[in-house]
């Protein structure tokens, strides 16, 4: 709804938000991208590196730590899909089984209310090779179990994935529950009367009906994975060695530890590009959905 009257005051009221959007967001992004083409080190230099425009990017992709962080991003992304699957299963079970619904929902969602730093500290302790879960299981005679994941560079990432799934599954469950609510009872009844098995009902009817919810979850997950930072700091601090570097960690590290502005800017620009790659499908999808909604109204 739009009203035709004074337009000056609303524009004045919007001025701070507009200023923030153009200075703090768009301006800052352009500034960071610009710096990635300069030879800035500790302080910004505003001379474009004409000699070799992509010098910072060349160094970046020649840097083992950065390559590792990109690989870890993919591993973390693949691992985090478990959280979506897990969330969907939990949502379906809670949705069908009304007993204890409130209790289970509360339990599965509480990790989301605590800081990722706390989550990281907790799981770091559980994975402690000498005193943590592994020691307890070995004491019980299960000596073949290895849970010293964080101590070894080839498995450390899996520990981070487990903690992320623990933290995030409840969130996807909440989104899936909202999606399941939209499947009305008529469909349930019709399917039951038709004698369709439960398994088939979910794979053939529910999942296709919820494809938008799944897509939303997948996009939110991707964006979350690109931003992953706190959990890495709290669990491994990038180690052992550089085995759990992720792009966000690498960028912050390049800026604070190496005091290298140009390098950090280039890494941040790559992060932005990865985000855009996930974000553009979302824009298209949202626009299409809006159009569809408008069509259904008219």
């Amino acid at each position, binding site marked *: 709804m739009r009203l035709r009257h004074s337009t000056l005051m609303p524009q004045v009221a919007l001025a701070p938000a507009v200023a923030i959007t153009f*200075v703090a967001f768009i301006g800052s992004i352009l500034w960071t991208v610009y710096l990635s083409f300069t030879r800035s080190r500790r302080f910004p230099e505003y001379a474009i590196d004409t000699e070799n425009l992509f010098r910072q990017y060349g160094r970046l992709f020649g840097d083992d730590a950065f390559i590792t962080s990109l690989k870890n991003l993919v591993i973390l992304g693949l691992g985090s899909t478990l959280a979506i699957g897990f969330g969907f299963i939990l949502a379906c079970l809670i949705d069908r089984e009304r007993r204890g619904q409130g209790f289970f929902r509360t339990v599965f969602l509480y990790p989301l209310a605590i800081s990722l*730093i706390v989550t990281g500290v907790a799981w770091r302790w559980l994975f402690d090779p000498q005193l943590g879960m592994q020691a*307890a299981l070995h004491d019980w005679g299960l000596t073949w179990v290895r849970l010293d994941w964080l101590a070894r560079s080839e498995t450390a990432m899996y520990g981070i994935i487990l903690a992320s799934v623990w933290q995030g599954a409840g969130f996807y469950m909440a989104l899936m529950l909202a999606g399941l609510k939209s499947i009305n*009872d008529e469909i349930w009844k019709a399917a039951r009367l038709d004698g369709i098995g439960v398994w088939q009902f979910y794979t053939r009817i529910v999942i296709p009906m919820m494809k938008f919810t799944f897509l939303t979850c997948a996009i939110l997950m991707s964006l979350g994975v690109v931003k992953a930072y706190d959990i890495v700091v709290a669990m491994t601090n990038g180690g052992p060695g550089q085995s759990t570097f992720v792009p966000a960690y690498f960028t912050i590290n390049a800026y604070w530890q190496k005091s290298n502005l140009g390098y950090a800017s280039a890494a941040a620009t790559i*992060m932005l590009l990865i985000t855009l790659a996930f974000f553009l499908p979302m824009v298209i999808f949202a626009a299409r959905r809006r159009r569809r909604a408008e069509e259904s109204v008219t």
Partner: protein
Amino acid sequence: MTMNVNAAAAGGQLEDEYLAEVPLRKERRIRGRSIAVIAFLTFCAAFFCLPLYVILVTSFKTLDQIRLGDIFSLPTEWTIEPWITAWNSACSGITCDGLKVGFVNSLAILFPSLVLSIVLSSVTGYALALWNVRWAGPFLFLLFMCAFIPFQIVMIPLIILTGMFGIYGTVWGIAVVHAITSLPLLTLIFRNYYKDIPREIMQAAVMDSGRFWQIFFRIIVPMSGNILIVVLILMITNIWNDFLIGLTFGGLGTQPMTVILANVVITTTGETLYNENMAAALLTAIPPLVIYFLLGRFFVQGITAGAIKG
């Protein structure tokens, strides 16, 4: 956008009526399945509670007992010593003042951040939803884009900008950055809520006074109770749990609790004081957990509001 609690109840009722029509033989099978489902959910719940249980018992153990290595056992002698030292004298880097410093800092950060971010985004959402601004559409799209960019891409310029204004490293600096980074998402939430205000109310208000601010304070704000609670809870948990902004923009005297906690856990001199670390982690987690257990419904609405754009 909001989770419809009534729909669930209504759905349950319908199902009851339907189940009543099903012959008994079938009902028994459903019951067997119910037991399996509940058993599985209980198992999952145990997995979710495990870390919390382990931190809790560890924080009450003596170091001697922790050295024995049974992480799942209950404390043989309960001690609150770790909690006291974590609060008062845990060492983080160079200082040994415990987490109480971080707690005070987090509170000091919380209030200005909440006021700035909510005032800014509610006014923005209101102007975009209910007033005729020609460039509202493109601007909303820009905001929508900004909601998803990683913080690292704007971090360095924001450090320089806050430095220029002389607020870098202060509580206000952190508050301003929180207000900036939360602006896109909160504006979208407020706009979606205000968009659904009935036309008649707005028209009557315009006929009555027609003043932008008067309508906002007299009519819109009193109607925003619901969304304000949702946004408040969303922002309190976000700001309290934030690590990166506090780390980047907090000076030595303004580091929030999460940063102090990370320092306590990461910097170890000599033997790791696991019980103290766990008590410190719990102290940091208690405020948002209390909010979650008291006002869980609004919390769920908040986290899903950003995800499902109605």
